[in-house]
């Protein structure tokens, strides 16, 4: 896990001029890179085309094809997407808040306290990196039934709230904070919790941002567990709502299905396009562990 210990670098906007190496054709490579890039966005461009044009143009390409928002309007009215969005926002917020609190406390304990059982407990935490909640759907469903939480937003989020990944990531960050700051705060009369709040949390802000972005996109996109544990409009997140919608209601009206698909990913996609740099940097930061 600690294979790459160095701090993550920021993506440099400009690369410094470096002498060129011999061999290899740059023009050919640029061409290949662009071919791959176009290939990569082709499915998305195709989806955009279909969603913004009348159904008769959904599989036909004509420059004169009229643009329309009808598909989006139809999709929005065909299923309770507003409610699904609300559920997803509630889910993502709830999971993130719970994760931040739990992960901060646990990471602090692992980073700055010595106590019996520390290594065993840490190994138990790391076990979740491999045995993720996604693999335990059968038993977790049983547990939710016993707890009477089936078909609630809480049930979707609960298995993910204590995040091994978050604990690990934040522990690494906390460990890089000089102990002198910690001691100074204690001399000033801070309790450990106050020290955590006033020294550690502010200094770990970039890690929090990285973790938050990764967590939000993970839970916005999560599908299998919510599909299993929810059963009603009141608790379904937008991914499950989209699946229920496209599998049952629409037959094969692709214009409406692609419109609904873009609709459901819209907020995340817009957020990504606006904060592209932060997203990419966050994923980089979160990946280096």
């Amino acid at each position, binding site marked *: *896990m600690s*294979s*790459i*210990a*160095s701090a*993550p*670098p920021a*993506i440099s906007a400009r*690369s410094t001029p470096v002498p060129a190496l*011999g061999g*290899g054709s740059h023009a050919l490579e640029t061409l290949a890179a*662009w071919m*791959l890039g176009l290939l*990569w*966005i082709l*499915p*998305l461009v195709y*989806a955009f085309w279909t969603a913004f044009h009348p159904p008769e143009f*959904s*599989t036909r390409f004509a420059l004169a094809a009229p643009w329309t928002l009808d598909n989006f309007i139809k999709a929005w009215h065909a299923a309770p997407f507003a409610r699904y969005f609300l559920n997803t926002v509630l889910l993502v917020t709830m999971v993130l808040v719970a994760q931040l609190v*739990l*992960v901060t*406390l*646990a990471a602090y*304990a692992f980073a700055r*306290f010595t*106590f019996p059982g*520390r290594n065993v*407990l840490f190994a138990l*935490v790391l076990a979740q*990196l491999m*045995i993720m909640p*996604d*693999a*335990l759907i*059968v038993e977790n*469903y049983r*547990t939710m039934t016993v707890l009477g939480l089936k078909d609630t937003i809480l049930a979707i989020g609960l*298995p993910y709230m*204590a995040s*091994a990944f978050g*604990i690990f990531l934040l522990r690494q960050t906390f460990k890089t904070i000089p102990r002198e700051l910690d001691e100074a705060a204690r001399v000033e009369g801070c309790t*450990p919790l106050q020290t955590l709040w006033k020294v550690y949390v502010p200094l770990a802000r970039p890690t929090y941002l990285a973790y938050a972005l990764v967590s939000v996109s993970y839970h916005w996109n*999560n599908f299998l567990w919510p599909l299993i544990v929810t059963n009603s409009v009141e608790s379904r997140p937008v991914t499950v709502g*989209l*699946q229920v919608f496209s599998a049952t209601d629409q037959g094969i009206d*692709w214009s409406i*299905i*692609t419109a609904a*698909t873009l609709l459901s*990913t819209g907020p995340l*996609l817009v957020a*990504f*396009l606006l904060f*592209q740099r932060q997203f*990419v940097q966050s*994923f980089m*930061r979160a*990946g280096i*562990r």
Partner: protein
Amino acid sequence: MTRTREWLYAWMLLLPAMALLALFTHYPALANLWHSFFSTPKGARPAVFVGLDNYRNLVEDPIFWQALQNNLWYALGTIPLSIVLALVMAIWVNGRIRGRGFLRLAYFTPTILPMIAVANIWLFFYTPQYGLLEQILGVFGVPSHNWLGSKSSALPAMMVVAVWKEAGFFMIFYLAALQSMSPQLREAAAIEGASRWYFFRRVTLPLLMPTTLFVLVNAVINAFRLVDHIVVMTRGGPDNATALLLYYIYEIGFRFWDSAYASALTMVLLVLLAGVALVQFLFLERRTHYQ
């Protein structure tokens, strides 16, 4: 603080996270093992101890073996390809290439989208006769083919979706590693007159080894964890050609409601994942300390 008070403090800090981990990770893993030795309760009939019956069923279940085999092919087909692509992409967008911003965006965007949305788009892409793939291939005179409907092409079609979705994600890690590499290495190589290929093979690739191993572990986990696209696009069909292990667990557990058999199947998945963890712990951790 006295020592015992510090211990207590640390344990209190850990308590909430450990309690949730115990309830939703450690307990279910153990309970799963326990329940795999019982029958599925049906109506008024409670679960009874059946020993290894579920496992006996499992060994004799051709669909299980097919799902396992599919999953191995799926892993073999997606992991090397997406890692190589990720590396190539990272090298391209790390260099001075024209349109670098666009390329980064193009490669990375699939990663941000939910698999379920992506699956919808690809389902349309693969549609017989109308889909874009068919239209493009039609131009080149390739006869029409039902990509998701035929046993031979359905699993490869799913692999394409997975590679498309994941390569950009892994690219990010390579990009991070490349940017932390000292430019002096490159300068020195240029002065020595090394070719790009030589530099890549003898300098870049070895230095990227820890990243490759990290990406590899993640790729293996994802190959067994992510089945959203199967649910949306093929439901394991045609004739179980695209049934992956976790999808089969889902089907047995939540479509046929045979929770005991699903527990036995889950044990196979857990053993596989534990195996990955063990390999990582014994093998990878030791080999990657030179950075």
